[in-house]
Structure formats: structure tokens, C-alpha cells
């Protein structure tokens, strides 16, 4: 059974139809990259999966439950799916440790001591255990993004959605974040990422999905997509990279 | 005892309201003029003058208006002048208003991106030209709404002049309460009259803010 299953998804902002019937199944452990031009609807698609955007038609099932059922359902579902944002979105008033501990304690009612141990473990996974007591403002962008990953991991999600998580970083900080993502992929985490890092996508992803004007235009394993793109749009897109 | 209907009360209160309005206008105009002078001193290059002007603003913003009214009332007496309550009220409110307006305007001038000053200076404009053609036109636009909005504070401030004996809306309220023993009705009506004066101004200020900011963004 697929972990995430999109069927004929339609989404419009007013008159502007941004997603025009998207169907996509994502298996547990699969690593998928969404690629495509700016404005093709990649972010919108990810945000729909996490219930941050509503949609007009179609359905999204995550581990068998529907995204748009009820606020309570939605909250349960979000606990199963983590999201990493381009702008990190760490909570500036909480230390790194508290950022990671917040959701486990507040949402899952994990006890303090347990949550702290969990937070330290997750921070260790991203190589930042020593920053437990620092505030986000004291970290570099790359470190902040790694904390954001640890924060999402602390909810022990079934899948992670990553929306251009290295785009706001200085070039020299990109690799430390990608290294963390690479580790996650190796450990079998289900990942759906929007990325412009083509070399990275080629290296770690099982499947590339090319979006064009709100549709899934072409998809397949990296070798096929890169070496034998069938449609003119994908050829043009890859030519630009 | 004479019977007072609610209408009688309202009529008397509205009659007293003219003095509130007159004093508010006088203090606002006076404060506007003095405030301009203070602002001018504030942005002086001579540092000690600027400091002095900032001290003036700080002084009036950090002491109660009521104390300023008392001092305006009692100080002239030291020199043998007995000023009527309305003069003391007008003087104190004028100075108080000037300090706040000068501070508002200074904030507006400082809110302009520093690039504006630098760009102007790099074009070789003199200080006066820079002010005249670049800073003032932009500062005026953002200063208009808060300046109008401060009129609300002035009107409310005049209520304190009743304490040094100026007869305006609040004083009339107290006098009528003493005659009618209906404080709930009287002070309720007084509050509503103040509200009727202030709320439209506050709305106007907000409207100006939206309009001028929108115009600002459109450029």
C-alpha cells in the first residue's frame, strides 16, 4: 500500500488553477524529487499534502487517512508527516533543544525527561547536540536548517516533505544540510523534496517527478529522466540547469 | 429640588463642550507651532541644542500632564501674575502637545530609509535642499496620520483642565452630578460626548494612514 496517495488533485487560487489533476503514489521508503520551473506548482503540491493548503477536487490519503477530513484528523496526519521549509522557521524565542522538544511535549504529551533525551538524540543525528542550549539566532543558516530537520524528526514521522530546503543558504552551507538528507535517505526515510540541486537529486532519489504548468509531466528513475527525457519541456528544463 | 431630565443634562453638557473644543483647537495649533520649533532644534547639527530639545521632549513625556497643569497655574503667581485657569490650561497643553508632536515628527523623519539621506547628499544637495525636496515630502506623508490622531490625545487631555478650574465638559459633568445626584447618567453622557468627538478623528487618522501608505507603496 502506498504511504501517500494523491488522486486527481485540483487546486486553484481564485481563477488561477495551479494544480490540474495530479495523481501520484509514494511508497514507504521512497525518495522522490519534484523538479520543474518556478511557478509550476511544486510548493503548492507539498503544502497540500501537509494540509497547509486546501484543494478543490481529488483526494489525498496518507497512511490510509484523508487529509481533509476534520481538524483533528488533520492534526493526527501532520504528526505522521514532517515538513522542512525553505526559511527554516525555527521558533526564535526557544532554545534549539526547546524547539525540538516543543511538539513532543505539547502534542504527544511526552514527559520532559523523555522529550529531552529524544531531542538530544535527534540533534545528534544532525550533528548539533552541542547546540542544545543555543538560540536559533546564534546559529548559521545551515545549522538552523539542520535543527529544523531534527525538530521534524522528533515527531518520528513516516515521511518528510522538504521544500527547497537549501535555497536560502549560502553556497558553502548547502552541503552540510544535504549530507543530513542523504543520511536520512540511506536510513530508509520516505522523502519528498522539491530541489534545484540536480546532482544531489540524481544521486539520492529513486524517482524524479517533473512538474510543468500544474501537471505531472514526466517521471521516472534519475538515469532515465536525465539521460533520456522524452518530452520537449523536460529537455528544455534540463538544458537550462 | 429642580427636576433635571436627561435632555436637560445633555443640553448643558453640549453647551460646555464648546470650551473643550476651543481649548483643544487652541492647544493643537499652539502645540503645532511650538512643536515645529522643537523639531527644528532636534535635528540641529549643534549637538548640545539637539540634546536640549530632546530633553524638553523627554521632560514633557515623562511627567504627568496634571502636574504640568498645576505648575503652569501656580508658577506665574510666584512672579506676581495671577493667570486665569484657561490661560494656564492653554499654555500647559500647548507645551505638552508640542513635545509629543515633535517626537512624532522626529520619528517619521528617522523612519525614512537612511539611503534617502545618502542618495540626496550624493547628488550634491545642500542640507536645506535635501530637506525641502527629499526628506520633507516623504516625512509629511507618513506624519499626517499620527499628527491628526494626536488630536484625540489633546481633546482627552483637556479633561484634566477641569482640575485647575477651567470649566469645560468634564467640569460641567461634575457640576451637574452634584446638582442631580445622577453620576451614572451624567458621566456616561460625558463619556459619549468625548467619544463622539474623538472617534471620528481616530477613524479619519486611520483612513489617512491607509490611503497615504497605499499611495506610498504605489510609487
Amino acid at each position, binding site marked *: 500500500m502506498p504511504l501517500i496517495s494523491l488522486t486527481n488533485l485540483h487546486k486553484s487560487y481564485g481563477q488561477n488553477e495551479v494544480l490540474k489533476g495530479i495523481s501520484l503514489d509514494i511508497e514507504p521508503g521512497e525518495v522522490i524529487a519534484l523538479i520543474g520551473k518556478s511557478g509550476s506548482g511544486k510548493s503548492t503540491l507539498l503544502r497540500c499534502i*501537509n494540509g*497547509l493548503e486546501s484543494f478543490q477536487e481529488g483526494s489525498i490519503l496518507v497512511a490510509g487517512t484523508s487529509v481533509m477530513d476534520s*481538524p483533528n484528523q488533520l*492534526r*493526527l496526519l*501532520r*504528526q505522521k508527516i*514532517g*515538513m522542512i*521549509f525553505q*526559511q527554516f*522557521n525555527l*521558533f*526564535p*524565542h*526557544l*532554545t534549539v533543544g526547546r524547539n525540538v522538544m*516543543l*511538539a513532543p511535549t*505539547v*502534542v504527544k504529551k511526552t514527559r520532559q525527561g523523555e522529550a529531552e533525551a529524544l531531542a538530544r538524540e535527534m540533534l545528534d543525528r544532525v550533528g548539533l547536540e552541542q547546540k542544545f542550549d543555543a*538560540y536559533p*539566532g*546564534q546559529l548559521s543558516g545551515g545549522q538552523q536548517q539542520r535543527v529544523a530537520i531534527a*525538530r521534524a524528526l522528533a*515527531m518520528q514521522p513516516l515521511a518528510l516533505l522538504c521544500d527547497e530546503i537549501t535555497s536560502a543558504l549560502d553556497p558553502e552551507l548547502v552541503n552540510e544540510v544535504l549530507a543530513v538528507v542523504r543520511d536520512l535517505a540511506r536510513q530508509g526515510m520516505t522523502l519528498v523534496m522539491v530541489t534545484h540541486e540536480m546532482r544531489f537529486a540524481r544521486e539520492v532519489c529513486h524517482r524524479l517527478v517533473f512538474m510543468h504548468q500544474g501537471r505531472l509531466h514526466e517521471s521516472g528513475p534519475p538515469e532515465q529522466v536525465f539521460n533520456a527525457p522524452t518530452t520537449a519541456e523536460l529537455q528544455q528544463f534540463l538544458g537550462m540547469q | 429640588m429642580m427636576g433635571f431630565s436627561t435632555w436637560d443634562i445633555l443640553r448643558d453638557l453640549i453647551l460646555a463642550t464648546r470650551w473643550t473644543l476651543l481649548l483643544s483647537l487652541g492647544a493643537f495649533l499652539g502645540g503645532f507651532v511650538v512643536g515645529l520649533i522643537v523639531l527644528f532644534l532636534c535635528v540641529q547639527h549643534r549637538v548640545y541644542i539637539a540634546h536640549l530639545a530632546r530633553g524638553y521632549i523627554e*521632560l514633557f513625556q*515623562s*511627567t*504627568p*500632564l*496634571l*502636574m*504640568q497643569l*498645576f*505648575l503652569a497655574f501656580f508658577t506665574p*503667581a*510666584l*512672579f*506676581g501674575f495671577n493667570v486665569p485657569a484657561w490661560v494656564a490650561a492653554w499654555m500647559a497643553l500647548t507645551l505638552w502637545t508640542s513635545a509629543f508632536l515633535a517626537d512624532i515628527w522626529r520619528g517619521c523623519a528617522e523612519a525614512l530609509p537612511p539611503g534617502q539621506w545618502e542618495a540626496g547628499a550624493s547628488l550634491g544637495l545642500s542640507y536645506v535642499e535635501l530637506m525641502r525636496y527629499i526628506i520633507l515630502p516623504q516625512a509629511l506623508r507618513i506624519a499626517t496620520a499620527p499628527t491628526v490622531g494626536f488630536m*484625540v490625545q489633546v481633546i*482627552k487631555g483637556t*479633561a*484634566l483642565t477641569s*482640575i485647575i478650574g477651567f470649566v469645560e465638559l*468634564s467640569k460641567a*459633568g*461634575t457640576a451637574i452630578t452634584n446638582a442631580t445626584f*445622577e*453620576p*451614572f447618567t*451624567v*458621566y*456616561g453622557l460625558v*463619556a459619549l460626548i*468625548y*467619544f463622539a468627538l*474623538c*472617534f471620528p478623528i*481616530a477613524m479619519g487618522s486611520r483612513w489617512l494612514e491607509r490611503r497615504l501608505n497605499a499611495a506610498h507603496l504605489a510609487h
Partner: protein
Amino acid sequence: MVYHFEFGALIPYIPVILHGVLITVELTLFGTVLGIIVSILCAWARSGGPLWLRVPVGTYVELIRNTPFIIQLFFIFFGLPSVGVHLNAIDASILAMVINLGAYGTEIVRAGITATPRGQREAGASLGLSGPQIFRHIVLVPALSRIWPALSGQVVIVMLGSAVCSQISVQELTYAASFIQSRSFRAFEAYFVVTALYLILALLLRQILRLGGKRIFPGGKAR
């Protein structure tokens, strides 16, 4: 005519003045703490609360912001007893200050809430937090830290405004000045000294609030 200043005439009244300072501090303390709580609750109601709450809270804010404090005080102290609510002068003063600060504070705190970057709420939502949880754990503290300077300024204004409470015979600082003036006829000296004390109190209060802000909001500048 030359006036001879005699600040020495105030010396016997030092206890009266000190008592006045104490009462002013007491009014300010209670007014501030309760007023900020009211501000937060009303700001929440106005920005994220149910519709049936938004309208009355909005009316409260506008009514208070557009009427003088002294009238609010008189209405509470003189007016409310006729509908059966009797408060002593101190309680009436504190209530008036709380209501007053609450109205201004509501708008200030709301501005801080509105300025919350959208990503902050989304990050909270994506972790599975509910609406109220997001407000309490994610939105509120950065919002307060954002507007702390403005809120501090309003607290100082309310402290200075408490001078008016002398008019319902609360024995605060201004009352002390009037008392001394009526006994010693040294009006200028009394008001001058008390004004200076208010100035000191205001500067101190600003300083305390600034340092307090640094302690309460350690995360540095919230974006």
C-alpha cells in the same frame, strides 16, 4: 516682587510624600500586571477569537481609547455605585487603570501578533500543534517581545495618568502635593518636587521594563 523658594518647608511632609510614592507604585504594579493580562486575552480574541467575541472587544477598545481616563475613573467610582457596584478608591483606580491599559495594550499586542511571519504558524501546524497551542507556544512570546518597547511606553503613560486618581482621594503622589499645598501654601515647591519624583519614577520604570524585557525575552530579536 521676588519670590523666596523654600523647599525646606517640605521637610516635615517627607513621610506624606513617601507614602504617596508607595501608593503610586502600588497602583502602577497592579494596573500593569493585570492590564497586560487583559491586553493579551483581548488581543487573542480580536485576532483569532470567535466572531461573537471580536465585536464586543473591539467596542471596548474603541470606547476606552476615545474617552478621557478621568471620566472612566469617575464613571467607575461615582457612577457604578448607582447600579450596585461599590468599590473603594484604590480598587476603583486600579480597575480604571487596568481597563485603560488593557484597551491600548490590546491594539499593541495585536499588532505584534499580526506581524508574526506566516512560516511560524505553518511550522507549528506541520508539527501537529492545534490553533490554541500554536498561539500559546509559538506566536505569543515573539509577539510580545516584538512590541515590548511600545507596551512599556504605554505602561509609563498609565503610571503618569494615575496622577488623576488623587481626584477621588487616593493618597498617591499627586494627592501628597495637594495636601502639602493646602497646609503649607508652598504650592510651587510641592508641585515641583512631586513632578521631579514622577520624572524619576518614569525613568526608573522605563529602565526596569527594558531590563525586564531582556530577561523575559532572551532569544534576541524576533523577526
